[in-house]
């Protein structure tokens, strides 16, 4: 209950800017004082009698606060008692309630003065205290409501029908809304084939529909019994101030805004702000759709205090379905009240939200929201050591046992991991990264972290030297997509064969899979003629064949092709055949002379051989890179370090240390300055008559006095040290004497004590000696320094200069 109430206050707090301010501004002058109906003394008496007879069922706020962590005794007095004015207000409220229940016996008792955490009845309006918070996020309703909904935890009431909050009804996912059945008749006649398909579709549709229906039934069944009976408090923001175009509701638990026309709001019993309390007199048969939020209209809104404001304010209130007759009951006993009676000031303390709490947002930094077939968990940043801030789990069934997929959002990760998406059905994991991963990883989707399995890695290609965009892998292939390379390579596809069996461990590093085929595609290089610009080259490694396909000329539809067979053969005489015409089969769109030459073909082939080697090497390197990335990912997952902004002064250890060091330095500096500013002359100048100018003689005297005083102090200090030194020495001598005399009879303890005393005394003597020596050394220097300083003192300098 506390929580809930606090919530309401909080709520109001949140709306304070809009609400309070608007309240003032929107206040409309009451054009017409309400006509007081002619009432005779008789009637009054009669009424009074009647009223006193009524047994009011004052809503016994039965919600005894559950076990509470709040220490009541520490709360201020205003929490524990009522002031006179508050008492008065409570009486007024009671009176109001009495008349109300008399006039509207069908309606639910008003929610006027629930007990607070100290079991003291408090009028609801006084629980609201407008406060301005130092966070810009809280200035606007949406982020503010978001905060409130995060900051508060909902605790369901033991009885959802008692006046407080029930929210369930509001979760409105319409995901499975029934689609209108398809009209199949027209197509039915047209084609047999079509018909069949449609039939199947229709069947499926029907099944699905039934399924949905069933599911919906399930949900409905759960909801029905309480429909319209629950009570709930929410926030109404009235149009007007701060450019709010029209009134709307905010549900505090979800931070969503609803139109006042929304179906979920079945009616309004009453509303209040920190200044007044209004009872709805309008018929709510159509939910809140027809309500008019003109609080100044006494026919529609019965006010409790004839106070200053009848204008419009934001309000929380109770909702109930069974609102019906709004009998005429204007001026209900209002005239009894003192017209100048106004709302007493709020008894609650100002809300204080520390920056930590604000950042943490949720209680303990964690919040779980259960949705239909989904669960949303939120954490404050840095709460989880792996940077997890949000997790959305969706389930297959309503009971939330079968997990469908999990989405996890991270923040401040050093590896820039942003979102992890786990699909439980397919077993597919997708990791999304923000720019800045050491390997420029953007998306990594995989089923297992084992190498040579199905996986797709996408990269931030601008961050990579090789312009790689995407690398797809299956157990037998690897496909890479590139962009913006200077060699115009755009695509490389590698087919792997079966690994040669080896005893050693299989991995890409030690025993790479043999490549069977490498396909590379290039985009058009505008500086080369199309006939010489290779569009695709295929290295069939096992067959020792290289296929080239060139780009197509602008005005052509065929492209040149060339195929090299690089089998080296030996002719009949045993000589190596270097190049024969049938080793290169080419189709040229426009036959050229020089390409027919064996020499040209030979050179081209040699070049291709080299390039094949290079391509193989690059493919191999890609494999290695995959391994490396996988290793890195595993390390990152294991370490999951978080980054801390240098502006985050609390968390950033380095900057904290630095700041503290700076503060220390500043402090020392300050001390030194204070010392430096010590005015030696002050006591001597004080002796002189005040307000007079110094004479030369006086100045000289002041100086001399100051110096002699300082000299005296130095001597005193020296004497003091000397005296202590002598005292210590004497004592030590005495002890030594005593020891020598009693040496024989001493117990070992005494001897120990004596020895330790001796060493301590010796230490003290030594220190004193050192200090004395130091003092002797420094004293003349200090004296000279003071003299120098006095010479330069602005008050004396004019007079002393002359002597110099």
């Amino acid at each position: 209950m506390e929580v809930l109430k606090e919530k309401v206050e909080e709520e109001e707090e949140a709306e304070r800017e809009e609400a309070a301010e608007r309240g003032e501004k929107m206040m409309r002058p009451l054009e017409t004082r309400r006509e007081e109906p002619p009432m005779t003394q008789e009637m009054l008496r009669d009424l009074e009698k009647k009223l006193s007879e009524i047994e009011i069922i004052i809503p016994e706020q039965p919600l005894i606060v559950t076990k509470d962590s709040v220490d009541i005794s520490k709360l201020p007095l205003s929490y524990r008692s009522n002031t006179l004015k508050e008492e008065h207000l409570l009486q007024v409220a009671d009176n109001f309630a009495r008349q109300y229940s008399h006039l509207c016996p069908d309606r639910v008792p008003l929610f006027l003065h629930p007990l607070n955490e100290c079991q003291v009845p408090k009028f609801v309006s006084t629980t609201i205290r407008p406060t301005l918070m130092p966070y810009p996020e809280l200035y606007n309703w949406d982020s503010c409501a978001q905060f409130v909904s995060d900051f508060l935890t909902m605790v369901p009431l033991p009885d959802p029908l008692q006046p407080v909050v029930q929210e369930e009804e509001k979760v409105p996912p319409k995901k499975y809304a029934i689609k209108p059945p398809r009209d199949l008749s027209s197509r039915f006649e047209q084609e047999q084939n079509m018909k069949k398909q449609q039939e199947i579709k229709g069947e499926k549709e029907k099944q699905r529909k039934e399924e949905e229906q069933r599911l919906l039934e399930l949900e409905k069944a759960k909801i029905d019994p309480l429909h319209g009976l629950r009570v709930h408090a929410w926030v109404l923001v009235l149009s007007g101030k701060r450019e709010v175009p029209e009134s709307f509701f905010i549900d505090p638990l979800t931070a969503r805004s609803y139109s006042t026309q929304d179906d979920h709001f079945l009616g309004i019993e009453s509303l209040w702000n920190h200044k007044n309390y209004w009872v709805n007199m309008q018929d709510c048969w159509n939910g809140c759709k027809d309500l008019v939020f003109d609080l100044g209209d006494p026919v529609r809104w019965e006010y409790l205090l004839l106070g200053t404001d009848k204008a419009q304010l934001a309000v929380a209130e109770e909702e109930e379905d069974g609102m019906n007759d709004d009998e005429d009951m204007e001026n209900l006993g209002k005239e009894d009240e003192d017209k100048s009676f106004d709302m007493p000031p709020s008894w609650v303390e100002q809300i204080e939200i520390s920056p930590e709490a604000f950042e943490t947002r949720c209680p303990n930094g964690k919040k779980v929201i259960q949705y239909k077939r989904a669960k949303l968990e939120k954490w404050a940043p840095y709460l989880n050591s792996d940077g997890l801030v949000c997790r959305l789990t969706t389930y297959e069934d309503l009971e939330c046992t079968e997990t469908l997929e999990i989405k996890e959002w991270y923040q401040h990760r050093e590896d820039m991991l942003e979102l992890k998406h786990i699909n439980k059905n397919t077993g597919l994991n997708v990791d999304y990264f923000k720019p800045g991963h050491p390997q420029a990883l953007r998306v990594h989707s995989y089923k297992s972290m084992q190498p040579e399995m199905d996986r797709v890695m996408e990269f931030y290609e601008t961050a990579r030297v090789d312009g790689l965009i995407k690398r797809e892998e299956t157990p037998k292939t690897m496909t890479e997509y590139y962009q913006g390379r200077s060699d115009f390579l755009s695509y490389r596809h590698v087919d792997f064969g079966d690994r040669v069996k080896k005893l050693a461990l299989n991995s890409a590093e030690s025993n790479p899979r043999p490549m069977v085929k490498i396909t590379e595609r290039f985009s058009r290089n505008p500086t080369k003629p199309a006939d010489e610009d290779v569009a695709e080259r295929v290295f069939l490694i096992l067959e020792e064949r290289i296929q080239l396909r060139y780009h197509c000329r602008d005005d052509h539809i065929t492209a040149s092709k060339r195929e090299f067979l690089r089998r080296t053969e030996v002719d009949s005489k045993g000589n190596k055949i270097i190049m024969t015409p049938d080793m290169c089969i080419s189709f040229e769109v426009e036959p050229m002379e020089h390409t027919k030459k064996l020499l040209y073909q030979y050179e081209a082939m040699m070049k291709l051989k080299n390039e094949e080697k290079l391509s193989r090497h690059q493919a191999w390197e890609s494999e290695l890179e995959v391994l490396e990335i996988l290793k890195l990912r595993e390390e990152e997952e294991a370490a999951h370090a978080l980054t801390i902004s240098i502006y985050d002064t609390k968390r950033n250890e380095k900057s904290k240390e630095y700041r503290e060091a700076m503060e220390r330095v500043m402090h020392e500096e300050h001390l030194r300055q204070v010392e430096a500013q010590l005015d030696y002359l002050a006591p001597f100048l004080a002796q002189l008559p005040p307000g007079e100018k110094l004479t030369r003689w006086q100045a000289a005297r002041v100086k001399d006095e100051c110096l002699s005083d300082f000299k005296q102090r130095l001597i005193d200090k020296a004497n003091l040290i000397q005296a202590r030194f002598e005292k210590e020495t004497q004592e030590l001598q005495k002890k030594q004497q005593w020891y020598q005399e009693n040496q024989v009879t001493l117990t070992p303890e005494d001897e120990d004590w004596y020895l330790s005393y001796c060493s301590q005394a010796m230490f003290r003597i030594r220190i004193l000696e050192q200090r004395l020596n130091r003092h002797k050394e420094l004293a003349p220097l200090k004296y000279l320094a003071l003299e120098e300083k006095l010479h330069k003192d602005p008050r004396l300098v004019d007079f002393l200069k002359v002597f110099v």
Partner: protein
Amino acid sequence: MQRLYDSMEPRVMDEDMLKLAVGEQGPQEEAGQLARQEGILFKDVVSLRLDFQNILRIDNLWQFENLRKLQLDNNIIEKIEGLEHLVHLVWLDLSFNNIEAIEGLDTLVNLEDLSLFNNRIAKIDSLDALVKLQVLSLGNNQIGNIMNIIYLRRFKDLRSLSLSGNPIAESEDYKMFICAYLPDLVYLDFRRIDDHMKELAESKHQYSIDELKHRENLIQARLDDELAQQMELEKHKAAFVEHLNGSFLFDSMYTEDVEGNKLAYLPGVGELPLTYKDKFVIICLNIFEYGLKQQEKRKLELDTFNECIKEAIQENQEQGKHRIAKFEEKHLLSLNAIREELDLTNIEVRIVEYSEDITELFNVLMTLEMQLVEQLEETINMFERNIMDLVALFLENVQSLYPFLDDPPMAQCRDLENHHHEKLLEISINTLEKILKGELDEDLPEDVRALFVDKDTIVNAVGASHDIHLLKIDNREDELVTRTNSWCTHLVDTIHKDEIMRNRRRVKEINQYIDHIQNELDNLECGDVID
């Protein structure tokens, strides 16, 4: 310049020498074997080195069309010649020769690196064509005038220059001067110029350089202006109305008109040409503007046409490409299938199937092409009609055939001229009468007075002037008409020709492709038979 090999006989660059050099410097090892088998054509040679050959005269290099790098250092060449055909040359080394003047490099527009180290050159010039020049080596020469450096300012890409060993390099200011005048230079005498040096040089020679820059800017501006004017004139010419935006035509009417000029001295005639000229010029301007407008229209028409044609062709090509790509996919499969098929009858069947595929592809491609031809034909004809109409309209309006405008301008010109002629005649006859009566008080020049002998003479003179004027107008008109018409026919012809060429090329391409595929299949068959 005494050299060790001066004692040797000067040699001639003959075929043998070149062959030897090419052979030695050509591909080695396996490739060399191939090269020897096939022989190397001179035009395939990219780089050639002919140093220490005692060559006196550069000759016989015209075959090396594709040469990129040529080294002729350490010879006794005296004159740069015979390099005109080596237009692709990038690198030319003529160091350690006896060259006295830079010449014969005017066609080598691609040259980037030129070395003339250790020669007898006294002046830097004749390098204008070498716009891409980056490295110039002129050390150990006889360049004596430091102002000669300014010539090098025109080479915007020049980064390395060497001039040591020249008389100018001995002057104290040598480095400073060069750094100041060639601010983009990075290396001087193969040493990097440091920034400090540059700054110093700049401040030292600032005034003279500023002046120089100013002059250069002026020249540049003038060139730009001229270019702009040239462009403008071209534009006008394209509209066939050049020189009509002023009094050019009018002036030309009077330049050859002796009598007319004489008659201008007559009293009262002086004012006539003025108003006449004004009106005339206005009409010319009308024609001019109308011409430009029409030109715009024609251009727009042509652009639209080109764009549409291009789109159509593009689309057609895409279709063709798509077909071929589809075929090729299948083609690979079927080839492999045939290769792997063992049963002879199956092979037969597959080959037949495959041949059918090929034929079908051929048919499809040809159909596509024929479709396109028909479509284009239609469009071209339409365009032809439209452009003809436009031209005809233009000419009609400019001439006087139809009064499309308020008054056809050329006819207006003639009317004006006729009117002017009548007035002139009237004045002349009046003057004649006055002269005959001896009432003329003004003095006329002798030759003018000579016209006023009798009526026939003066009428003839005025008539002659009028004829000349009319002739000029007619000529201009004829020129306009013929040029416009010829442009039009030329345009249409070109379009037709282009289309035919395109069609030929495509058909050839398709045939070639089909032949290639067929060949592949045949080879396969042969191979199978052999196997």
